[in-house]
Every structure is written in C-alpha cells, then in structure tokens.
C-alpha cells in the first residue's frame, strides 16, 4: 500500500463509485446518491489522513453518535454489499476465499466478503467494531468472527426482541431503557477509548441535521404512495444507503431535500416513472443487489413498478432533541425502527403487520419475495406472510429463491423467467 492508497476493498469501492459517477446507470442510482457515496468513501481517506479513528458498524445501526464524536463510521455492509450492488460482482472473489477457508456457504453474503477480504489482506482494519446484534443470526456470528480476526476493541449491543410502543401486542416497558442504556454505555466506552468526551452540543446539532434529512425522507415516502409512482423503484433504496452512511451530516440534508423536491415535482405534474403503470408491486425483501437494473426491466417489459421495498421503508421518527436524555431515547427508537431491523428483529408479526400496512398504503397489486437463500428467518415466515397478504390485502405473492448478492447460484435469466411467469398470470 503506497502513499494515499487504502485497503484494496475500499479502493475498489471508490473506483467503482468514481466509474459510476461518470457512467451513470439510468434509473438505478441517482447522480445525487453516487455523489454522496463517493464523498462518503473518500472521507475514509480524509479521516485517516487526520489520524482520526475508524469505527466499523452494521447496517442496522445509525451513525449520528460517531459523527458527533468525530470518528469515521465505516458501514461494513456498504463494503460487502456495495461491491455487489453495482452489478460488477466485485464481491464474488471474496466470497469464494471465505468459503474455501471454511466459512459455511449458508452464511449471508452481506457479511462474508469482509472475511474473504481479510484473509486476502484487502480488508480495512477498523479501530473499533460496534454493532447492534440485529437482524439475524448470520450477522451476529459473522461479526463475532470479525472480532476474532481483527482483534480490535469491540462493543456489541444486544437488541431487545420486544416492542417499545405501548400500543403493540408485544410491548414491554423494559425494551427502550434496555437499549438506551446500552447506547449510553457505548458512548462511555468510546470516551475511554478515545480519551475525550462526547460533546453533547455537537450531538444535538448532528441529530438535528439527521432529523431534517429524515423529515424530508418521510415526506418523500408519502409522495411515493402517489399513483402513478413518481420515481424509479430503486430510489427509496438510494435514500437508505445515503442515510445509513451519512445521517447527521449536512450532505445528507442536502440530498434528502433534493430527493423530496424531485418527488414533489413529479407528483405535482402527475408524472409517472413509466408512461403506463400496469402493476404496482411491493417488494417483501431487499432487492436483488447483483442485478440493480432488474426493476427497470420489470417496468419496461410489464409496466410493473416496485413502489416500496424493505430497505427503502425508512420511516423512523425525527428525534426529540430537547435534552441529551431524550436524544438517546430517540436514537434507541431509531435503531429499533430502522429498515429491516423493524421487521426482522422480533416475532413474525413485526414483519407481517408492517407489510400489510405497506401494501395497503402503497396500493399494491401484488407482492414479491426475492428469497435470499441465506435468510433463514424471513424464509421461516414467508408462508405466513403470503397467507396474510392474500387474506387481509387480497393480493398474490411471488416467491423465488435467489442469492441477492451472488449472481451465480440463481442467475438473472432464471429470475426473469419467474417474474415473467408471475406477471403474465396476474395481469
């Protein structure tokens, strides 16, 4: 590694983003998204240059506290999944290295590539590893493997199974305090590691910016309910990855405003993303990362728009910033309510009820489950979910197997055949 060069995994990601910046894939990643992500990855190098610390965290956690403490929030999944998500399969060699070294094939490829990269010497070495143990077993064990391999100070956070909302059937009054307390302990732990205190005023400002961005995204999500669907199907996911990595920064606020305005414009002019919208689909899972233009193909060939998906459903509430205690409470709620965490961390009802609501609010005609083969807990409830959607919303569900991050087990052609079969049956 020469001067200015970082670990190969991050360098590759930076190169991909810089390539995509100049060669945008239409209707997949918005220019605004790539600009933000490129800046985010570049920031890694900026922080390192200033000798600042890097904390690796997981995609079901939020980075405001890290920004407030002036350490770089490196989202692991942005690396492992990011390398797949532009359709260039740059994660696959790392998957193979990991599997050859004894990582079972059935573990999720959202975490596996980092292990392969580590074994190849391509992985960034964080100063700390902090993760909220959700949404699943695969993440929980693979982060334990990271701890075992990297041997850097780490702080895992246990996520409660129950709900914090008194209206919920699964309400438990200890839920919020249990998580909030751990966030506070995490800060205390970081303060000891870093040798300086969290500036609570700075935290307030960071969270206020996060709120501002989120308020725009909430509006955006409302606008996406309009018929016809105003923006390309992957747009909510675009918002997700920007918020996941940069919530609390001014760049994120700018981004969110732009997206909200774009949506508002389209809705005002009653402009749909395609001329004739025939099918409105709700995606019951994360999309097929290795095939980012799949939704476009669906739209062009069948007039099918995906109006909302799992990661795009970012509906966390703005955080009460009246005092530091309320901020921590709000952040705890956010961690519990983040996309995928909200549906997957607890009983099947969280997932099913969320999607019944989503399908109704977004006027779905059908639901599609791109069943990621490593995702045992979602496969464990899909039959119940499909049943509920049929009974309570009156819509059919398509289920198919896929590895959302590896193009080889179930190639694009097979997925297209399944979708075609489904759409031609239900139209």
């Amino acid at each position, binding site marked *: 590694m020469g001067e200015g060069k970082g670990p190969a995994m991050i360098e590759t990601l930076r190169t991909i983003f810089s390539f995509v910046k100049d060669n945008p894939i239409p209707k997949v990643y918005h220019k605004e998204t790539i600009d933000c992500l490129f800046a985010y990855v570049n920031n890694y190098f900026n922080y390192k240059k200033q000798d600042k610390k890097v904390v690796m965290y997981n995609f079901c956690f939020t980075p405001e506290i890290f920004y407030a403490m002036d350490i770089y929030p490196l989202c692991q999944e942005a690396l492992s999944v990011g390398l797949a998500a532009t359709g260039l399969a740059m994660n696959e060699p790392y998957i193979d290295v990991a599997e050859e*070294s*004894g*990582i*079972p094939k*059935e*573990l999720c490829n959202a975490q596996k590539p980092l292990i392969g990269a580590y074994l190849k010497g391509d992985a960034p070495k964080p100063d700390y590893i902090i993760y909220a*143990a959700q949404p*699943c*077993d*695969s993440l*929980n*064990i*693979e*982060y*334990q*493997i990271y*701890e*075992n391999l990297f041997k850097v100070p*780490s702080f*895992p956070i*246990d996520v*409660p*199974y*129950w709900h914090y909302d008194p209206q919920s059937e699964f309400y*438990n009054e*200890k839920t919020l305090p*249990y998580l909030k*307390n*751990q966030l506070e*302990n995490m800060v205390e732990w970081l303060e000891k590691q870093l040798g300086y205190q969290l500036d609570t005023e700075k935290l307030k400002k960071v969270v206020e910016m996060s709120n501002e961005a989120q308020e725009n995204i909430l509006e955006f999500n409302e606008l996406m309910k309009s018929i016809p669907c105003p923006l390309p199907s992957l747009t909510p996911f675009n918002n997700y990855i920007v918020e996941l990595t940069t919530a609390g920064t001014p760049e994120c606020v700018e981004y969110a405003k732009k997206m909200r305005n774009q949506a508002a414009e389209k809705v005002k002019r009653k402009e749909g993303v395609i001329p004739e919208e025939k099918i409105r689909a709700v995606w019951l899972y994360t999309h097929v990362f290795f095939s980012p233009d799949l939704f476009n193909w669906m739209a062009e060939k069948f007039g099918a728009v995906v109006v909302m998906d799992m990661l795009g459903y970012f509906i966390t509430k703005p955080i009460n910033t009246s005092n530091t205690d309320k901020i921590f409470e709000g952040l705890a709620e956010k961690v519990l309510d983040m996309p995928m965490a909200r549906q997957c961390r607890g*009983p*099947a*009802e969280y997932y099913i009820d969320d999607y019944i609501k989503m399908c109704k609010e977004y006027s779905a005609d059908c639901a599609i489950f791109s*069943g990621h*083969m*490593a*995702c*045992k*807990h979602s*496969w*464990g*409830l*899909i*039959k*119940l979910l499909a049943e509920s959607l049929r009974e309570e919303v009156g819509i059919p569900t398509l289920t198919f197997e896929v590895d959302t991050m590896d193009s080889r087990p179930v190639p694009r052609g097979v997925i297209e055949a399944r979708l075609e079969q489904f759409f031609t049956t239900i139209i």
Partner: protein
Amino acid sequence: MKTLQSLINVSRTLSNSWIDSWKTKGYILGYFCTHVPEEVIYAADILPVRIRATGCKETSLADAFLSSFNCSFVRCTLEMALEKQYPFLDGIISCNSCDHIRRVYDVWKQKVGTPFKHFLQVPRIINDEAIEAFVHEITLLKASLEKHFNIDISEEKLWEAIKIYNDVRGLLKELYNIRKEGSPKISGTEFMSVVTASTAVPKHQLKMLLNQLLNELVDREGYSNYRARLLVMGSLLDDPHYIEMIENMGGLVVADALCFGSRYFWDPVKESGDPINNLAERYLKKVPCARMIGEHDTRLQYVLDTIKEFDVEGVIFQRMKFCDFWGGECFMFRRELKERGIPFLELEREYILSGVEAAKTRIQAFLESIEARRL
C-alpha cells in the same frame, strides 16, 4: 445395567412411563433451548420436558409452513406437532435462541393448537444490565404460569426446585467425570442417552435413577478397546445414534460441549440470595452457546480445558445444515485448534440421521490420521 438400559429406552422415545404417570396428576410443558429456566416451571409442579423430534421420519407437513432453508431440527419438531405426536404437552415455552427456533414458535403459535404458549426474550450478551433484563423476563414467565395454571409459585418452591436441579446437575457431572479415566465405564453413546433422557424425566425420580446408575457402574468393566479419545461439539444433537456411528468406527467419545451434553448440567444455580436473580445469572452465564455474543473465547477455553482434563486426542465438530451460529463457530474453532495442533474434523449433518457412509469415511480417515501421528 438395568438403570442404564431404562434411560437409554427413554432417550429413544418422545414420551415415557414417567411422563405418562405425571400426566395423570399434573401438567407438562415442552421447552425449546436450555436457556429456559426449568426450575420456575418445576416449582409450579409442572414438568418441563425438552422438545425433541425423536422418531421423525420426514417433514412434509412442516414444509408447508417452514422452508427448506430452516434447520431440520425445527422442521422436525413442527412436523411432530402437526402430526399430533406431543399429546402429553399442555403448552410450550420458547425463546429467541436463534432464527429457526423463533420462527418455529411463530408458526406453532398459529398452526398448532397448544393451549399455553410463552416466549422468553433471552439476552445475547452477559453483563449486569442483561442479567437484570433476564430477571424481568423470568418474572414475566412466572406470572404467566401462575395466571394460566392458577397456581402460586412461592419462593420456597423455587428453592426446592433449584436444590433438586442442582443435585441432578452434580450427579450428571459425576457421571461425566468418569469419562476422564483411561478406560471409561460409560461410553459417549450411553452418556448422551442419559443426558437426553434427563430432559424427559422428573428430576426427583431422575436423582434416584442417577444414583442407581452410578452404583451399577462401579463394578462395570471400562471401555478400553478404542482407537482415539474424542470430543464432540457443535449444533443441537440429541440423537445417541450419531455418537454411536462415531464410536462404531472406533473413536470413543469421552467429552462434549453440547447442549444435550455437558452444557446442560455444568453450572449450578447459587443456593442463597434471590432465587430469580440466581436463575437469571446461571441461565445466562452458563457455558455459552454460540448465540452468546462476545463469548467465543469462553467457549474456546472451555473446550481447551476439557481437552486437557479428559485427554482428548481429536475434536469432531458437527454442524447442522443452516445452523449459522455453530457454522461460524466452526470456522473459528478450526483455525484455533489447528494452531494448537489439535486434530479437527468438521461434519455437516441433518437432524434425521443420514449420509452415514460419507460420515463414516471421514471419521475413519480422521482416526487413522490421529493414530499415524502417535507413531
């Protein structure tokens, strides 16, 4: 070996004569996972029986609800439930051990007409706040049992239950330690049968049986004709036939780190202070399952200590297909044991015993390589 044989028989069936007899005068609750504090149930004069799917042949009913990506253990238990093979259960208690266990509960809730159902949130980390959270959960369980079964679980009853459970744990440990000897008087197959049976026999009767068994073993001739001393670890394993398969190839299984093995009885509950607090502490801090985050080093040390004390020459790590927690642990254990020069064999398996020829070939080659090193 009368007592041993009767315990072996218990391990081969779902129900047994003690369960039948208990059923005539009391309730029985099935529980998934050793994180469920049995004493609370027993203190309510309810028999806790660990849910197994012994005898399950296929999962056609279960597969209508769970998927082929869910572990075969939970699919088999759901199958047995749908086939009404648990008529003796008045309810089930589950917890968030892992993705498969929590989903089988979700399906069971909707599709199997079990009258009493309770789900326990078990923390994934070990610290004071987690213990406090677990105390709260156990309190909720207690209240739930009291309400549904119209019974009062007094502190006195809790201490009684803790005492008898500790007695049983002590006896099982005594039995386990017999295997330290050069010619152990109980084989791995037999021991697993005993532990499996222990999860299905009321502890008062079990205490008697274990005492009898220890007496019976005194004059028994030990197993000396074996090729190597092995430790078995990994995913949930309640089938003595699996251990038998290993021992038939000549490897004597002298130790384990299984939840239907040493991890079931290793740690006692403190017998003074607050009973619920002590239960929470013990059931959280006991030799950890791979689901417990930040505890890999504890697991490793436990296995290394056992290897030393039991003169173990090789470790067989079996992992059930789709078991993420133990699958990931396997990766770490392989590296760490290899570093220390400890022979290591990984075997993939399903809950219903299959692929025996393939497994036997690997086990045989493993034993041969251990023998070759001795020369």
